């Protein structure tokens, strides 16, 4: 088991011939992901690494069954690509693209909700169900099967902690990147619910950061969970009103502070690590 994607997930890559798309398609193939088709308008009929390329999503669906699509399309055109996947009925859409205008994001996230699709991102590293399927850009070497579910707002911090977990002997069931933007599709609470129901997942690592209130909202659900949660929040030292890289990582008008998030999580029963390196030990104790 795993959540959202697994060894049977058939993946389509939108923007497969671009610089990012082609590099990461090769990486996904190397990880074992079932990439069945690519989309690149104007390149329909060609092949990329033996994967057939089509002009449109609808053209793909005439020939293939597709469970998930991953978007490597430049920001200015990303909305069109995401809507195209959703309109065609793709159930899971992973939006890697960063720098998408937020009005576009609100538009396609609302449409995804109407179509009852899972939208991961934008500005996410993607999702990995260890040993089964990787959709997105994380380095292949840090994700191995195991009992820990990971959900995160940050890519490299996820790799860092995943690497530490692997070193300590704990693999991951699935790691989900929520994305670093002001608004994102799938949120902590959605993912926590899936982990709670997933038999393979025994504990969850939640990696948050300052800004927004996703961690506070997640805390309400963590209270009800039977599975233990270890949380780490980045940005304790960040000054207010300064955007720390991610569009969403900013303390505005006193909202979205480190302290508020840690308090909510701790009160909900999560163990909160002060440094990434403390996470594996906490997991060890919880799973002992």
């Amino acid at each position, binding site marked *: 088991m795993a959540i959202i994607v697994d060894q049977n997930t058939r993946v389509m890559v939108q923007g497969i011939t671009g610089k990012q798309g082609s*590099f990461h398609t090769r990486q996904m193939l190397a990880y074992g992901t079932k990439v069945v088709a690519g989309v690149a308008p104007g390149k329909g009929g060609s092949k990329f690494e033996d994967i057939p390329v089509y002009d449109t999503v609808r053209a793909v669906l005439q020939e293939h069954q597709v469970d998930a699509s991953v978007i490597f399309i430049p*920001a*200015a055109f990303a909305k069109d690509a995401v809507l195209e996947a959703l309109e065609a009925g793709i159930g899971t859409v992973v939006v890697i693209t960063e*720098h*998408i*205008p*937020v*009005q*576009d994001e*609100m*538009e396609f*996230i*609302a*449409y995804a909700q*109407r179509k009852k699709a899972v939208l991961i991102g934008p500005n996410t590293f993607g999702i990995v169900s260890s040993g089964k399927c990787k959709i997105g*850009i*994380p*380095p292949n070497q840090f994700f191995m099967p195991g009992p820990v579910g990971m959900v*995160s*707002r*940050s*890519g*490299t*911090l*996820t*790799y*860092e902690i995943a*690497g530490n977990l692997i070193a300590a002997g704990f693999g991951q069931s699935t790691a989900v990147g929520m994305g*670093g933007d*002001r*608004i*994102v599709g799938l949120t902590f609470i959605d993912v926590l619910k899936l982990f709670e129901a997933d038999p393979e997942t025994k504990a969850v690592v939640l*990696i948050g*950061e*300052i800004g*927004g*209130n*996703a961690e506070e*909202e997640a805390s309400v659900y963590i209270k009800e969970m039977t599975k233990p949660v270890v949380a*780490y929040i*980045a*940005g*304790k*030292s*960040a*000054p207010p009103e*300064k*955007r*720390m*890289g*991610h*569009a*969403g*990582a900013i303390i505005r*008008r*006193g909202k979205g502070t480190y302290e508020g998030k840690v308090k909510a999580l701790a009160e909900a029963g999560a163990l909160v690590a*002060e*440094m*990434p*390196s403390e996470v594996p030990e906490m997991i060890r104790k919880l799973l002992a």
Partner: protein
Amino acid sequence: MRIFEYMGKELFSRFGLRVPKGRVVTTAYEAAWVATEIGSVAIKAQVLSGKRGKGGGIKFADTSAEAKKAARELLGMKIEGHTVEKLLIEEKLHIDREFYLSVTIDGGAKKPVIIASSQGGMDIEEVPENKIVKVHLDVELGIHPFIARNIVRRLGLDVGSRQGKELLNIILAAYKIFQEKDAILVEINPLVFCGEKIIAADAKVIIDSEALFRQKDIPYIEEQTEAEKLAQDLGISYVELEGDIAVMANGAGITMSTLDIIQRYGGAPADFMDVGGGTDMEATAKALEILLAKDPKVIFINIFGGITRCDDVAGAFAKVKKEHGIPVPVVIRLVGTNQEEGRRILREQGIEAYTNMDEAAAKAVELAALVPAGSL
């Protein structure tokens, strides 16, 4: 990207909102001249600070001479680090009531939200919750008069009255600006009831910087330092901070985390620098130069290589050291893609890279503490 009040008001005008009669000036002489024309005026420093009022950036004048004096005082003044270069000279409004109105994005709800209050003129955070009307918008449905009518009613105005109808149109226009101009905030505070009219007495507009490519009529407003600009041109996310340990890492989360750990060990980071994934050797070298230019006590590089290759980072370091010299201690943590090659390159430069980020951070803090204050 915040835009200046006077630009926000130009935008408001274009979308049919009433704004005070006024003019932008850059000299005290012009200020006096505009005051002669308008009469009693408010003189408002055009700075991108939320604390302008409290920072003394607004003055009033009843005569041209007073206006000149006030303008002289304001021009060149610093408010929260921003130098006042332009003034907005506006008619002084007769104020019956002050309302608050804004349109912004609720990240949790993933929707736009209209926030309004009949208690304007102060920070919305200071207004009691029960005096605030919040309405979330259904993105696919969009804005419609009935939505604005409900807000007008909940603010206690008669929806059939002239003022009720005017406020309704103001709400529709503010939302339209928000949507069509790719704003992330359109805030009018105060929205002044002035006799029969309702006037936007202030304008705080933030445009989504990711959408500037399609908002050609909005000028680019520089809010960054020179160094931040240089970094941006490299596609690198960089924020200057107050400390003395220069930080470079890859990924927003891990960079924040690096700063946190430095602080935890008693150090003070000099910046947030996220070189992201896939930055090449050339750009990494330039990024290093940006850090060096700030004369830090120590440089701490924390790379968890994924797409970023460790040998590229090490190579960049070697390049800068060779070309410019690196006069301060450098602590490097290097793991991930091509780490062996990277470590080898660093070793040639006399540096033994760390694999553990806590240890590396502790070392950086320790080294910084060895440098006496003011020694650079």
